[in-house]
């Protein structure tokens, strides 16, 4: 029953997302190629995200991608023939299943120090069995933010551990440093690390929150050997500690002073001119009256 639901669900989803321009095309599973992938991200707190992506991509129209949702994905740590189930997650509406493995989880590694992860979809009547694997080395990023002679300095130490727990410095690995923003991270430095250490001066004029706090990130992204690794530290190096909230003066009870001043000047100018004109009219009338009196007296 459950597998039937999956089948209908997929077809319905595939139909719902199909490009209307290609409506005449045959809309069945044969036109779609299943893409099943796995990636891993080591987070700042040493927990690890395992993310499986499950999407059906149209063979002819690469823009036509149909996510497969509500699919159970099992995540394993694999060593030789042994598979340790780390957990299970369902794909969301984007076709993504995500499992956060806590920091205290221990992994088995192969002789080269790689951790093997595997994501498995067991398959249904309508959808085939799928699996994807990824092997990464466990990287440790030590991010230090220090004031050295009044210079805000970012120091990163990056290493892996061998079987004897000896630190092996990272070589020629691209590191991206960024600061947290409201919507996304803003890169501030991008360079290759050598001898497991990288150091640079933190730029001035980076805005922080209302207390000046700022999140500094050091990240390894999509590395073949290490996957994604993120380290984060928070420090009060940001500026704009006092955020001034400007309120719209026009919405206030009282208008801005300049408005009263301008309006008063304009009105006084105009009405004074009216008063001057009316005063002159009275002068004209007065003169006329005097003329009338004079002519009456003469008569």
């Amino acid at each position, binding site marked *: 029953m459950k597998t039937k639901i999956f089948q209908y669900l997929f077809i319905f989803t595939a139909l719902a997302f199909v490009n209307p321009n290609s409506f005449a095309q045959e809309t069945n599973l044969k036109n779609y190629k299943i893409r099943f992938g796995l990636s891993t991200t080591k987070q700042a707190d040493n927990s690890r995200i395992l993310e499986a992506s499950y999407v059906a991509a149209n063979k002819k129209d690469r823009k036509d991608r149909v996510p497969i949702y509500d699919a159970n994905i099992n995540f394993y740590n694999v060593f030789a023939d042994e598979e340790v189930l780390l957990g299970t997650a369902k794909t969301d509406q984007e076709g993504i299943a995500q499992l956060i493995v806590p920091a205290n989880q221990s992994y088995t590694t192969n002789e080269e120090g790689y951790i093997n992860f595997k994501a498995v979809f067991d398959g249904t009547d309508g959808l085939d069995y799928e699996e994807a694997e990824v092997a990464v080395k466990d990287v440790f990023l030590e991010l230090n933010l220090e004031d050295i002679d009044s210079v805000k300095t970012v120091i990163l130490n990056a290493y892996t551990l061998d079987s004897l727990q000896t630190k092996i410095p990272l070589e020629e690995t691209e590191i991206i440093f960024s600061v947290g923003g409201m919507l996304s991270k803003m890169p501030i430095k991008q360079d290759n690390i050598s001898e497991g250490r990288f150091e640079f001066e933190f730029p001035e004029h980076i805005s922080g929150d209302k207390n000046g706090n700022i999140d500094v990130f050091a990240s390894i992204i999509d590395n073949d050997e290490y996957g994604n690794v993120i380290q984060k530290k928070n420090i009060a190096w940001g500026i704009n500690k006092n955020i001034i909230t400007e309120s719209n*003066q*026009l*919405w*206030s009870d009282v*208008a*801005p002073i300049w*408005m*009263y001043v301008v*309006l008063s000047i*304009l*009105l006084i100018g*105009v*009405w004074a*001119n*009216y008063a*001057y*004109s*009316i005063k*002159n*009219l009275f*002068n*004209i*009338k007065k*003169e*006329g*009256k005097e*003329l*009338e009196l004079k002519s009456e007296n003469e008569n």
Partner: protein
Amino acid sequence: MDIIKRKSELVNEFSPMLEKSTKTSKIWVSFLILVILIGLVAFIIQVVNGHIVTGMRDNVVWGIYIINFIFFVCLSYSGAFISGILHFFKSPWKNSVSRIVEIITVLSLIIGPIFILLCIGRLDRLYFLFLYPRIQSPITWDIIAIMTDLLGCFIYLYLTFIPDFAMLRDNSENAPKWRQKMYKILAIKYYDTPTQREALHKITRTMSVMVIALAIVAYSVLAWIFSLTVQPGWNSSIFAPYFIIAGLYSGVSVIIIAMYLIRKFYHLDHYIRKVHFMGAGVILLIISILFGYFTFSEYFSRWFSHKIEDTKLLDTLFNRYFWYFIFANYIGVLVPVFILFFKKFRTIKSITFAAVIAILGLYVNRYLIVVPTLETPYLPIQDTRPEYIHYTATWIEWALSFAGIAAFILFFILIMRLVPIIPMSGIIDYEREQKRKPHASNNH
């Protein structure tokens, strides 16, 4: 002594115009009164039943009342502007058109604001505007501007009338008593002495500058009522100059039409000559080109920026209001330009026809500024009755609109019965000037 005689001659020349009451004019006045009475009935119905008798609803809260308001007020401002320029620069055409312009100015400034009162749902709360004004609000600025401008225009109009009232006072022995008394009061004992004349010229000249400045300020404030909102179609930085140009376009057109009608019915061919129509035609040509340019800029920038709300508005304009749009922005601009551009087409009748087309086009243009914008709100309303979204004016609104136009024409006729449409004092001033400078041109 010559001047006194000349004044008497002029009064005798223009007196028939003041007393003339033919059968046609009586029918015409009766018709105007009838239209006003129908408007009055419509007004009573509106007051008793409320705005439900109009086409205005939840979305379109401003209909043809506000369009009439803009139209008349802009007409007034342009009249003040043109009149101020004629006086300040002592234009040779001053004597032929200045009084027409001044009367248009004051009448439209009286009638225009009445339409905004008709737009207000709770007239009983009108005094709140004065008791609790918000200085930040363009509506408050507009009230201040209109009241200041109205008083300024009244004073200005009166200043230009005083010498004529004095001439009529001194030369209307045969006029009815009430008329003699009225002229005596209004002439405020003006005897055209050099000091009186100098004082009057000085304040008239100052007031002419003042009315030009006031017209520009008031025009801008009127435009800001729209452009300071964020409504699509209104929120525009060029609205103030656009309104000034549009106002002048309507002002010059109405002056041309008034000149034509007055010339025809009062046989004033000697004073309102072909040269005046030619000059006014060229001015109308320049303004129509400017108006077309502003209209194009306004719509082009909206079309090019392609903001969702603007696109919806343009869709409405090019679908529901297609023929209105064509008439207002193509026929209303291109036909006057075509007629006035070629010298051989410039006759008194063709210039007047161009002015009529311009006026009609401009009125529809105002309609397109107000109504389609209100019909395309930011938040679409679902499951509502179409008449709550779309606007169509009811007979009540049309009756009141025509009553406004009828009142304008009727008051114009009544003022012309009070003072001559050609300022006699202007002719005297001109002749006085000619005596002082005998080689000056004869192009008055």
